[in-house]
């Protein structure tokens, strides 16, 4: 049985060699069938984004994932550049801009600070969902279905490799569930973050074993 949803992961990390979490997250989803991992910094080291190619990629996928670390309450630079260039008027929004309508959008982000830092009375004074509002609104304008973001808080505190590996496994489970349509969509919509409690929003086992 083929995948129900084809997933495009737009990955942005300018210094992957220094990453601890995103690197293994990437590895965890890299060879899944039905999942295309698109490493933007690897593809466009000079930021010269090939718009036609990117748009073609969007058209052939059902779920678009922005996977990146949070830099200054937003994404690394190339992902913003990507949005500015690829989500063109007439393609993604505006008159005739219906190419992305009905597709699902997911932010999969990591933060250095812990969950408490991202609360109204915490250091960052806003919740992470609030910081992600530009992405939510972008998805809305493009007619996309914005899913609660998949957030891994507190990466600065994570030291032990087993913890990192367990986190990567959860992420892999979530991506596979999205792909196989094993998600309680109603329950998901009621949560603030996709991975608040994965057992509540996804069910069943992966139907195929992937390398």
């Amino acid at each position, binding site marked *: 049985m083929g995948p129900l949803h084809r997933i495009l992961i737009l990955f942005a990390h300018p210094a992957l060699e220094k990453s601890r979490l995103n690197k293994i997250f990437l590895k965890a989803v890299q060879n899944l069938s039905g999942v295309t991992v698109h490493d933007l910094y690897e593809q466009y080291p*000079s930021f*010269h984004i090939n*718009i036609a190619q990117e748009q073609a990629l969007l058209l052939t996928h059902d779920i678009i994932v922005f996977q990146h670390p949070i830099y200054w309450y937003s994404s690394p630079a190339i992902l913003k550049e990507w949005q*500015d*260039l*690829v*989500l*063109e*008027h*007439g393609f993604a*929004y*505006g*008159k005739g801009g219906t190419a992305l309508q009905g597709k699902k959008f997911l932010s999969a982000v990591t933060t250095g600070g812990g969950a408490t830092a991202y609360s109204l009375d915490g250091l960052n004074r806003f919740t992470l969902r609030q910081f992600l509002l530009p992405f939510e609104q*972008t998805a809305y*304008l493009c007619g996309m279905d914005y899913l609660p973001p998949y957030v891994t808080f507190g990466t600065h505190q994570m030291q032990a490799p087993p913890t990192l590996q367990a986190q990567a496994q959860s992420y892999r489970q979530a991506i596979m569930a999205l792909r196989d349509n094993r998600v309680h969509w109603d329950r998901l919509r009621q949560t603030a973050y996709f991975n608040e409690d994965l057992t509540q929003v996804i069910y069943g086992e992966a139907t195929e074993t992937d390398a």
Partner: protein
Amino acid sequence: MHNQDFFFQAFIYLGAAVISVPIAKRLGLGSVLGYLMAGILIGPFGFHLVGQNGEDVLHFAEFGVVMMLFLVGLELQPALLWRLRVPILGLGGLQVLGTSLVVASLGLLIGLPWQSSLAVGLILAMSSTAIVLQTLNEKGWMKTEAGQSAFSVLLFQDIAVIPILALLPLLAITPTHQARLVSSTASPWLNVAQTTQASLPPWQQTLLVIVTVGGIILAGRFLMQPVFRFIATTGLRELFTATALFLVIAITLAMNAVGLSPALGTFVAGVVLAENEYRHELETDIEPFKGLLLGLFFISVGASIDFSLLFQNPWLILSLVIGLALIKGLVLFVLSRIFRLELGQGLLFSFALAQGGEFAFVLFSFTLQNNVLTSAITAPLVVAIALSMALTPVLIIGYEQWVYPRFRLLQPDREADLIDEDNPVIIAGFGRFGQIVGRLLIANGVRVTILDHDPSHIDLLRRFGWKVFYGDAARIDLLRAAGIGHARLLIIAIDEPEKTLGIIHAVQKYFPQIQILARATNRQHAYDLIRAGVQVIERETFGSSLAMGVTALQLLGMRAYKAQRVAQTFKDHDEQVLREMAFMAGDKIQLMARSRQMNEELAQLLQSDDQEIAHLIDHAWDASSLYAEGKDESPREATPG
């Protein structure tokens, strides 16, 4: 007549080699065994094509051993030698000591005087550098733990010959007795020249030795550099080969004159020259001579095996051969356990070195001259040593067939990475193009082997502390010596288009696994490279011209970021067209038509500033479609800006 004799000899030797070595190779026996059998066949006990003359050839062929030690020296940077000091002194020293003691005690047991016992022990402790290195190299085992350990032991032995030569005369029993030489006479290449040694008082002798070795080191360090450079400027390859041979022969003569082993002298010279940038060239120039002469040497060893002694006294000789192999093998195996070699590696180490060596021939004749031993003792031992040498390749084959598979199953192949010129990147040509590539790589910790054939250039680079090797990259043997077999990338940055293509074709044929990155001198050359299947091509002036174009656009008022982006667009387009046109180049008319069309396309693309190029590069930043939509209908709330 004499000439004809020489040619006839050469005819016999070369013929025997040409016939038997390929057969031995085909049968999986290795070249050494092939040479030895060729020698036995043409020798006095085979077809009797060479008789006593064989000895002359043996002396000449021993020069092959001398050359081999020169090449071994070239492989060894002093730093590596220092790193190997523990196995060299520990393994090598204990091996010589252990074997000598065991053999000497056996000698005492059968009633020999202690002096003779000790002499025999010391001489039998030597193993055959020539046979072991050649055989292990052929199997590709030189870099294994066992190979490196064997190498260390052989190195120690080659050096130990000198003090042993000094020690042996002290062991003389009857100073008046004048022994006659038996089967192998004093050899001019491996041996000491007794005349000088006898005629000089010891302190003068010592002084002479120090001066000679010191001279070799100093000359190698300071004199050879300008000489090689001068020779290299002539551009005559055969002159370089001649210089290399001249060097080795000169050292050999000098060492003979002071009564030292030429093998040691050339070894020292090799080590001195190991850091030299002409090293790879020297290696490749001498290699064929070494191979041929070593082959001759093996043939002569085969031809000089005295089978009459074997037939007269088969049991004595056989027990000597087996006893020698057992004693040496056991000593080596015990050492391999002490030095914690893996079991399989320890066995290989013991099998490989359990024979007598070529130095034993020399040392035995030396002991005869100095009345240390009598021919009654040396004659059977010389035959036993020759046989044990001939048996070594057989033992190794046995190891490969029955022992090796067991250990291979038990443990993964672990290759000690000691001799370390196997850099992942080779840059051929280190001129204005190659330098920039190389500097970027080196600055990022990538180990790079650089080849260049401009002597003045190399000299300059060396003054800035670069490690550069002299050599013509068009020679596949030189590339091989530079480690292309293990490299991942070959960057061809030379400025001769034809030569670049030549290298590419040769490398693709012999080393298809390596990724080639090539510098194209012009568009036509780029076509050739694309057609040759090179994936990564950089046109030498393209990038910098483009950069200048970008600056020009900026100076004319274009914003920097836009200038950069139009240049990138131009580059992408041009590269696409380049690859397309590479395969049209045969058809001139088609090519010209396409070329015109391309120019029009590009002009259109670049001139139509407001439409085409804007569409290509920054449509999304252009709000005109939003204005247009706004005119059509009342603007929606929905705008992202």
